């Protein structure tokens, strides 16, 4: 393979140069930041990430509020990982999950962020800073966001445990996942992950066929059954993987599972059609089933939640005016509008208290505080999600995020795990 070098004089670099000159000229003659505000309109930042938070509404609002252009590309998490790791020049901002950060950060394609430039840094929830939601919380297993959230300095390639002042990702979105159930077809209390393999639901259970997340759900189940005690569910040993998959292969052969699902809509259809009454599920999928008028509960379980979180990172090649624009964007992101937008869809924002300003009291009460809705609750797109009187499954933010048992993770034995997972699917 031959490496072709392209001429360095691109539209981008010319723009950058021109912008810098104008800024300098402006600063020396007028000493006002007004000129800078004019220039920033020419900036285009390229963001890519998973579909969850790559929303066009955000790009539109950025144009309105900040003046510059944000180009969004949505990819699946495998493609996101690959691109962040191998093509640092193809993006300015990476919107990735924390476990992806663990894989990508050591490649040196992202640059650390100076928290002194982040206005709302002090208001970011503890999960992303010292790992503790409240001072009494214990830290869950798996790739906890704070453990990969900080690095040694501007050029750091290693993670550090304490708040070093240099962040790898600025947290944006997170949630706690659990099992979804059809209460009308089950007709009794469900309170433990072990119910997924309860023979009572033979042929009516499902699990997601995405190995990295499916294995976690499987581990939650095996642990709840008392079959396996894990050292760290987010980083299993080969032996633990073998045992987990053996239990699931046995259940599969006994006909426990109706189907596996890989995409959001598959999980919705399985649940809505009644093919499945208990399965691993994502929060918006529950809402989608409920909006068809079919009862569906995101069941809180005594062992706790499997949680995930995402954040935005800056490309190594970002500098000058564009870097300033990126910091501007981050500050705007944490300023509440996006937070409110995400929280009204059932996710959580990194700085809940600013999001509160962009939600009605009723919305805040329902989504964050776990209070009964006073009137119908609509999502940001105007669709009614919940009727008056409804209470969020799992309750308040502190009830839900305080009960996280494990974070999405990437294991040291990842490759081995994937092979075992393939065996499970083929069994």
């Amino acid at each position, binding site marked *: *393979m031959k490496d072709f070098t392209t001429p360095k004089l691109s539209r981008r670099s010319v723009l950058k140069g021109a912008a810098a000159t104008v800024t300098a000229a402006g600063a020396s003659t007028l000493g006002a930041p007004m000129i800078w505000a004019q220039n920033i309109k020419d900036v285009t930042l390229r963001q890519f990430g998973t579909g969850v938070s790559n929303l066009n509404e955000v790009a539109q609002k950025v144009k309105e509020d900040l003046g510059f252009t944000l180009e969004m590309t949505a990819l*699946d998490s*495998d493609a996101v*990982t*690959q691109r962040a*790791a*191998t093509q640092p020049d193809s993006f300015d901002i990476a919107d990735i999950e924390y476990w992806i950060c663990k*894989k990508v950060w050591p*490649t040196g394609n992202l640059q650390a962020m100076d928290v002194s430039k982040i206005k709302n840094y002090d208001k970011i929830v503890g999960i992303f800073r010292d790992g503790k939601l409240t001072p009494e919380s214990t830290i869950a297993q798996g790739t906890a966001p704070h453990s990969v959230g900080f690095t040694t300095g501007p050029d750091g390639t290693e993670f550090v445990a304490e708040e070093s002042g240099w962040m790898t990702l600025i947290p944006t979105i997170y949630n706690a996942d659990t099992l979804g159930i059809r209460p009308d077809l089950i007709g009794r209390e469900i309170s433990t992950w072990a119910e997924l393999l309860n023979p009572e639901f033979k*042929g009516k259970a*499902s699990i997601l*066929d995405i190995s990295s997340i499916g294995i976690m759900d499987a581990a939650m189940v095996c642990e709840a059954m008392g079959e396996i005690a894990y050292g760290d569910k987010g980083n299993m040993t080969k032996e633990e993987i073998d045992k987990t998959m053996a239990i699931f292969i046995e259940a*599969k052969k006994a006909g426990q*599972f*109706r*189907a*596996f*699902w*890989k995409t959001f809509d598959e999980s919705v*259809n*399985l649940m809505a*059609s*009644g*093919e499945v009454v208990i399965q691993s599920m994502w929060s918006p999928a529950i809402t989608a089933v409920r909006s068809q008028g079919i009862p569906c509960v995101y069941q809180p379980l005594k062992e706790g939640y499997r949680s995930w979180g995402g954040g935005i990172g800056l490309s190594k090649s970002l500098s000058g005016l564009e870097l300033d624009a990126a910091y501007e964007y981050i500050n705007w992101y944490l300023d509440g509008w996006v937070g409110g937008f995400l929280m009204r869809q059932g996710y959580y924002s990194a700085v809940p208290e600013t999001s509160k300003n962009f939600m009605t009291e009723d919305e805040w009460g329902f989504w964050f505080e776990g209070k009964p809705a006073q009137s119908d609750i609509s999502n940001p797109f105007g669709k009614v999600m919940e009727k008056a009187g409804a209470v969020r499954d799992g309750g308040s933010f502190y009830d839900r995020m305080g009960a996280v048992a494990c974070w999405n993770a990437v294991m040291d034995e*990842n*490759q081995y795990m*994937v*092979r075992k997972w*393939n*065996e499970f*699917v*083929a*069994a």
Partner: protein
Amino acid sequence: MRNLLKNPHLTGWLLASPLALVLLAFLVLPIAMIVVVSFWGATEFSIYPAFLFDNYEFLFGSPVTYSVFFNTFKYAAITWAFTLVIGFTVAYFLAFHVRTLTWQVALFLLCTIPFWTSNIIRMISWIPFLGRNGLANSTLISWGVIDEPLEWLLFSDFSVILAFVHLYTLFMVVPIFNTMMRIDRSLIEAAYDNGASGFQTLTNVIIPLTKPGIMIGSIFVVTLVMGDFITVRFMSGSQSANVGRLISNDIALLQYPSAAATAVVLLATVLLIIAVLLRFVDIRKEL
């Protein structure tokens, strides 16, 4: 120059070269690339050129590979048997029972109408039909044939094969119908005149003369089923695996060399099957 063009060898080469170039660029080169990549190495993010047998070693050393290949053969064989019987019957009816050419063409077109829609749509529409609370189960229950819904109708080998047969029978009908239409009717009359029964005519005259059509249809069906992954994924509810799914899983995890190795083995297997099929009938001679 003029003399040069009259050279029959040269004109022959020139006439053949456009097709040869197209095949080279779009068939031979991609396959060669796949073979080359199958020897490369991969990390979690990238692939690097090398000459390793790791991918093949893992492939042949894993029990999953054998069970998945067995499953793929099973689907191919059962689907082939059903499409052959149904396809042959339909083609026979069209060719020998429908008398006028107009009706033959009209009925033949009727067979193709479902194929104006996407095959994914045709496949997915089975899911609500076969489901636990689907049309099939509720009808059977209301007739009193069964008391409990039949679970094996959906997300089972049954539903996978049903979808395959539904999707691919036409590929059997078309070539068989085509060869049947070319059979000289006087041969059949001669068979009757010589006292052959209907069944004897079928086995001694019609089937031998339809062999090339059967073979072409078989090649279509077998290669389509062997290479499929989406039908198996949807109709088995992701619970069964075939070789195509193995490859697509590898691609999703960015393990291109391993996917390429599996693809090479699959390609070799399918070529082998076709070679064996062609031993039975010389398609070129009999067309």
